[in-house]
């Protein structure tokens, strides 16, 4: 079995079987990262170009390491090094990169739809590493992988996603991923942060954190974009933290054995209390560690689809 498309642009366009295939493939790559020599020759002779047109540390590093551990040649453009994009359209930039025989282009871009546009215009495979508020498919795959590692079954699993859903590509990708695998997804946040018609994606919306947490098996906290204060989404960081911050006390409302996730970077003491970050329930560092194996799986499966 392989992926149907040459690209990974969204979780929305994947089937449940394809999700499972990526996770199973990641299992075998996880072992590679534990070896003394962390490298396999799967992508030898292939070129992976990371086009990161928005600041990113962990996703960029994770993709870079994933490609290197697969023995691909890797080049990374970040905003500071990409004077190439000045006055040039994204598609023109990408076509030039493609002309240099790039096999896979990994794109992080501030505009929703950028990856999809690129995928349509290029023969190379395109991996969406985050496009505006739209999707961040590999982050959702990492989150699924991490939960699976904890031996959780997705059907019936109650997952509360808490925070600014409206402006979160991580939330969108996770909503698609979890609902496709049969989990029960809750979106928790003030109405200012819940996008229009979200219930039509099969999500239950909660405005009160305590209600949203009750009975949850997994809690995914989203980063509060501090710069959004002043956009009338919430009054102050202090008040947000009071009503939507995950504290040890609130954690007790969830099911015993609840897992706490966060895609990072964390605002300690804002959306999540330091005690929770560092608690036994937290799988935040597992998420970071699993990023490489999952992205190796994605690059590997796409490079196969391309030959």
């Amino acid at each position, binding site marked *: 079995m392989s992926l149907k498309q040459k690209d990974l642009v969204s979780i929305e366009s994947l089937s449940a079987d394809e999700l499972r295939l990526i996770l199973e493939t990641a299992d075998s790559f996880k072992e590679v990262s534990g070896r003394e020599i962390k490298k396999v020759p799967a992508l030898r002779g292939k070129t992976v170009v990371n086009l990161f047109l928005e600041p990113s540390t962990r996703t960029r590093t994770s993709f870079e390491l994933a490609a290197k551990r697969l023995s691909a040649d890797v080049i990374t453009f970040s905003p500071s090094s990409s004077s190439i994009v000045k006055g040039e*359209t*994204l*598609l023109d930039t990408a076509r030039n990169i493609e002309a240099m025989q790039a096999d896979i282009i990994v794109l992080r871009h501030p*505009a*929703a739809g950028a990856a999809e546009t690129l995928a349509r215009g290029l023969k190379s495979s395109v991996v969406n590493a985050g496009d*505006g*508020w*739209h999707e961040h498919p590999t982050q959702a795959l990492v989150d699924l992988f991490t939960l699976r590692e904890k031996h959780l079954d997705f059907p019936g699993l109650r997952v509360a996603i808490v925070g600014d859903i409206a402006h979160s590509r991580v939330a*969108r990708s996770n909503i698609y991923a979890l609902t496709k695998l049969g989990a029960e997804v809750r979106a928790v946040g003030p109405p200012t942060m819940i*996008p229009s018609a979200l219930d039509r994606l099969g999500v239950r919306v909660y405005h009160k954190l305590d209600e949203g947490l009750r009975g949850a098996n997994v809690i995914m906290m989203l980063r509060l974009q501090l710069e959004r204060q002043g956009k009338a989404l919430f009054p102050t960081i202090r008040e947000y933290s009071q009503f939507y911050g995950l504290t040890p006390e609130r954690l007790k409302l969830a099911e015993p054995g609840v897992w706490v996730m966060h895609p990072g970077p964390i605002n300690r003491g804002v959306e999540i209390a330091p005690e929770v970050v560092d608690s036994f329930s937290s799988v935040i560092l597992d998420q970071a560690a699993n990023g490489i194996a999952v992205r190796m799986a994605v690059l590997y499966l796409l490079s196969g689809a391309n030959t």
Partner: protein
Amino acid sequence: MAILIKGGRVIDPGRVNGPADVLIEQGRIVSVGQNLVSSRGRGAAHPTIIDAAGKVVLPGFVDLHAHLREPGFEYKETIQTGTAAAVAGGFTSVCCMPNTNPVNDNQSVTEFILERARNAGNAHVFPVGAITKGSEGNELAEIGELRKAGCVAISDDGRPVINSLVMRRAMEYALVFDLPVIDHCEDLHLAEGGCMHEGIVSTQLGLPGIPAAAEEVMVARNLSLAHLTGARLHLAHLSTAGSVRMVREAKSRGIGVTAEVCPHHFSLTEDAVRGYNTLAKMNPPLRTWEDIQAIKEGLSDGTIDAIATDHAPHAVQDKQQEFAEAPFGVVGLETALPLTLTLVDEGVLSLEAAVAKLSTEPARVFRLNKGTLAPGADADVVVVDLEAYWEVDPTRLRSRSRNTPFAGWKVKGRVTTTLVGGRVVYEAV
């Protein structure tokens, strides 16, 4: 030079609907009736015959809302190319919006537009002047002089007047010159950053939305101000069920309001944006099925007076950008007729009513001496083959721009001949 349009079915809304010939002399309609011959009798030259057998003969269409882009954005459209597109689509009169560069906020720009239109020699052009200087929403433009120079209405289209006091004053002042005040109803704060309808599709695509309320709060404000001032208020390109409902209610209370809708708003929903299709990006945005139903009801019961195109040409490179960056707008002059005729097939409008929404009614809204085949009127006539199927091919549009979301659509109803002032300005090849 006499022209006789023979053998067609004439539909002149409210006046004629049946088989008739149309006789044109010296640029004017002489008579409409059966078996006409030239009135000049013996010795006069034989009239040129236009065979309209199997076709309908209609008053030339009047577009209340088009962007001809000149001066300032000639790479998107010029008055020459825009009016060529107009006559190819059956429009013999075009009201052009003032958001050019410079803005049409003074008589010299108005005069320039009119001169370009005369030189182009296609459709009649009726400029719409700005409400405020530079359409900046602060100080009133010289509305009296704009009227004198030839403007037929005022609008700050695309940059709606947010300050309600300025809008009130504009409405009051425009009364002196009997000018309609047009508003593009959009609360710019509510719409901030939005690039499509706020709903399930914007949620899925992760794009900032423009809620229906952004239009509706301004419709409500404008109706209140029209009630307060007694102004002639014209609401442009309404797109939501709530707007239609409010206009219906306002009309029932006798408020002097008229309204237009655009073919794209009753032909497409927000779903057309999926895939980040910038050709489906316009303002107001494509809404929902329920909104389309409400617009159709509004057309049917007369709440909506006219169908206008909001023809908004943009060059290929303008639209080939990330969705959020691409400009709003679609071309519409050459597709309005077949899209309107779908309303006839669906039973929303009779054929005569559909013709009226494109001709008689818009002419009435701006009190233009157009949209009729009455004897003595300018011979602005369009001959249409209602049964002709054709495929919308963007490369064959007369407009300088090709930004249509209808590419590849098989549509029915085609303009075969257009006359302006008794002169054939378009013939289908």
